[in-house]
């Protein structure tokens, strides 16, 4: 079997490309190194859909993000992922910063960013965002900026792609690629795939993949960003709050999430280890200090989690989206912020590149762009809930108390196309363990359900794939081993 297209990388970029191409009559596969999709740079991401004014005009990322923002409207209607345009503020705290904001506004409007507005009226600012610091002298308001749950978007993209025929292979790390006679042979541990066209969306590992084909024209460096998450109800924000940006990043933001939490972060540290998602004492201090400049009264006692994510930073300072010198090989690399914003525009671009390569794009007759909205206990009225439980009792069995998740939602997460195989996979698809108890009550139940539904032992259930098992052995096993060893010694 020779695929028309293979995509390497199951982050938001790879999955978005897969879904966009799934509209056409093509044989497509996606290979992901980790045990689940969306678990790399996509997972620990600010989840901000930027308005698009921030990047410099010389970069394609500016144009792709402005266009990408607009594409969210239709995608949201089709894919039913959590998304809301709540608007963002860039906050000036000194008069000297106002000129920069005014420049941003002018250029943004010229380039098609809608309704950018510079607000000086302190009363109005305070009214729009009561939590904001009194030091704010002006804000740049971008009403089209929004929030998206990056992993839920990615799951939605993958599910819809799978519904339309894309094959997903998780735990398939690419170790070798050969290119002969217009055919790529892609080797993973234990498997081999063939395809005509190969798309490299491998995030932090995209430079390595490119080098496998002898293309050594860019490098990717990991840049770490740490975050602190606060409990729901701890505070309420109306807007995404940015400081005046620096050269390396858009700065430490204070931001609501679509689930009612608030987070602060990220900072920006260039590191060398692509697996280093550890948080640090200094880093956590840094983001709290940064965040306090925007919101002085942070609910420190309500912090429920800290985590770090890595951005794939290219040495070219821009997205690398190329039809390369290797015929049929497309690099989609260095997709850091505003990559999430740009994903739909990037996927369109990749489609155009494939057309240039002569791939025939014929729309499938049975293409279905709709990924149904996952049914959520929380969205149901009491009457609907009653009806649901009568039809299916698993709606009435609450597994996660903090987030009110019934067994049904967990079963749906497991049995969805490209469904969950790990505890983290379930957590990111339907939220058990995301709450303030950090999985204290629900984890044993989730392990039990996974073990039953996947027909594996308790000890084989993992947090996030190989070598992350929760449980070691049965109670008494160690004592029984000791007894056995004692008997053998005698």
């Amino acid at each position, binding site marked *: 079997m020779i695929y028309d297209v293979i995509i390497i990388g199951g982050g938001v970029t790879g999955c978005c490309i897969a879904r966009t191409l799934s509209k056409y009559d093509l044989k497509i596969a996606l290979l992901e190194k980790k045990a689940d999709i969306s678990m790399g740079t996509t997972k620990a991401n600010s989840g901000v859909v930027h308005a698009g004014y921030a990047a410099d005009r010389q970069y394609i990322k500016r144009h792709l993000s402005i266009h990408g923002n607009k594409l969210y409207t239709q995608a949201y209607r089709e894919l039913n992922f959590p998304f809301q345009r709540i608007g963002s503020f860039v906050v000036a705290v000194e008069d000297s910063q106002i000129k920069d904001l005014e420049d941003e506004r002018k250029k943004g409007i010229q380039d098609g960013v809608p309704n950018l507005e510079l607000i000086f009226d302190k009363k109005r600012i305070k009214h729009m965002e009561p939590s904001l610091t009194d030091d704010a002298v002006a804000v740049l308001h971008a009403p089209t900026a929004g929030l998206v749950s990056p992993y839920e978007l990615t799951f939605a993209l993958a599910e819809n792609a799978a519904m339309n025929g894309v094959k997903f292979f998780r735990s398939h790390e690419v170790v070798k690629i050969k290119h002969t006679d217009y055919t790529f042979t892609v080797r993973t541990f234990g498997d081999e795939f063939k395809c005509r066209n190969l798309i490299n969306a491998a995030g932090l590992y995209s430079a390595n993949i490119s080098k496998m084909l002898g293309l050594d024209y860019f490098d990717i460096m990991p840049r770490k960003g740490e975050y602190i998450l606060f409990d729901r109800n701890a505070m309420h924000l109306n807007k995404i709050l940015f400081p005046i940006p620096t050269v390396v990043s858009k700065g430490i933001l204070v931001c609501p999430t679509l689930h009612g939490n608030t987070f602060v972060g990220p900072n920006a540290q260039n590191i060398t280890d692509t697996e280093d*998602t550890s948080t640090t*004492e200094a880093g956590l201090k840094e983001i709290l200090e940064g965040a306090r400049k925007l919101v002085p009264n942070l609910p420190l006692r309500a912090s429920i989690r800290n985590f770090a994510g890595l951005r794939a930073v290219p040495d070219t300072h821009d997205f690398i989206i190329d039809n390369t010198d290797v015929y049929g090989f497309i690099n989609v690399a260095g997709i850091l912020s505003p990559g999430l914003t740009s994903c739909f525009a990037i996927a369109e671009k990749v489609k155009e590149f494939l057309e240039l390569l002569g791939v025939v794009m014929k729309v499938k007759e049975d293409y279905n762009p709709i990924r149904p909205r996952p049914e959520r206990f929380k969205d149901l009225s009491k009457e609907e809930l009653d009806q649901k439980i009568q039809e299916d009792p698993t709606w009435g069995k609450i597994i996660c108390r903090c987030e009110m998740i019934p067994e049904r939602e967990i079963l749906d997460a497991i049995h969805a196309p490209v469904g969950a195989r790990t505890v983290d996979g379930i957590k990111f698809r339907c939220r058990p363990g995301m709450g303030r108890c*950090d999985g204290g009550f629900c984890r044993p139940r989730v392990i039990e359900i996974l073990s039953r539904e996947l027909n594996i032992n308790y000890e084989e259930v993992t947090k*996030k794939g190989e070598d992350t098992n*929760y449980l070691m052995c049965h*109670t008494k096993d*160690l004592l029984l081993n000791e007894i056995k060893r004692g008997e053998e010694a005698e």
Partner: protein
Amino acid sequence: MKKYEADVVIIGGGSAGMAAAIEVKKAGLDVLIIERDYELGGILLQCIHVGFGLHEFGEELTGPQYAQKFINQVNELEIPYLLDTMVIEITQDKTVYAVNNKDGLIMVESKAIILAMGCRERTRGAINIPGFRPAGIFTAGQAQRFVNIEGYLPGKTFVILGSGDIGMIMARRLTWEGCEVKAVVEINPYVSGLIRNQVQCLEDFNIPLILGYTVTKIHGKEKIRGVTISKVDTNFDRIVGSDRFIECDALLLSVGLIPENELTLNAGAELSSNNGPVVDNNLESTIEGVFACGNVLQVHDLVDMVTAEAKRAGNLAIEYINERYGKEVKREKQIRCIAGDNVGYIKPDLINLSDISKETMFTFRVKYPDRRIQIQFRDKENNQLIYKKNKVYVIPSEMVEIKLNLEENQIDTGCQHLIIDVVPRPEVLIEEE
């Protein structure tokens, strides 16, 4: 939708809920217990060690034994209960909505509600340990459930952070199952739990107790492979150069308990600084007819104290139904109790002025240990010392209980705030307690 009616609905079928239900039932009122787990008993069922029941039954019982005695009474009295049932909403008019997988949506109309949902454990997030987020990090209670109920060991070599009782008890429990506990690490310069547990759970097995240290880094990206611990200064900041690496394949956190009050908060009741509901001297929350007892109100040291408080709540709910329910009673004037020097929180939060002739049971915890202290109750408005009591020592792990009749102590009826301080004794005298 299934409908029930009861004079009193009790939310939570653990030690507090069962004790309150028994009181209500014995008074001849209709009661219904709603429990989210698959059996009655609550957290006691996983606390298989001894140390329960000395006050209540005059003998040392295990948690399951203590629970079983109450479960037996609930059954003998034919008190109805719903298992596997999750309360999703409590309304101001005391209707309780719940779901389970047999009845679907359940609506219970009641005259009074007793909140008895217990508490939950503080987690790693709440204490912000830097490092990776690998598999192998558990709260002590979670590990306890795996080992004692589900039948699995979550690791072979452990480090336990926090010297609370659950942490120390788990150290012994794991040792007894053949695991190795490398250390119990405590950020404070003193042990948080009972001395008895320090001796019988740690010293008996030569498990090192490392005071004044905390975990400052978690190692291992997939599975935990160790922790760095560091000495801290008086502000709990890491002292540079004091780092030590300890290898382990699991980390247990025993870093405190918090009353579980999401339902209470959503119902519109006020919470106080300990995350328990604000209650008056009748254990009544800021919603009329909604009472709270046990660990949902404040985390107790002993289950016997939970039982005593729950019995009181049961009787106060009965009194409410008999004397105040359905009557237009004007909200009366109240004195607000304020946690002063070295007091973490104080219960009750409010005292009805009309109740000052009755005895009030005050309970509180100190923030840090101290010796040769005086507990003082002061009327803020009149700057008058109402009551004082000397104690040889106070420690955060031991709740202080004081029964007091404010009228007999000549409180002024103009008092609006009662401040409770724990201060060094004004003059040092050799006194017997």
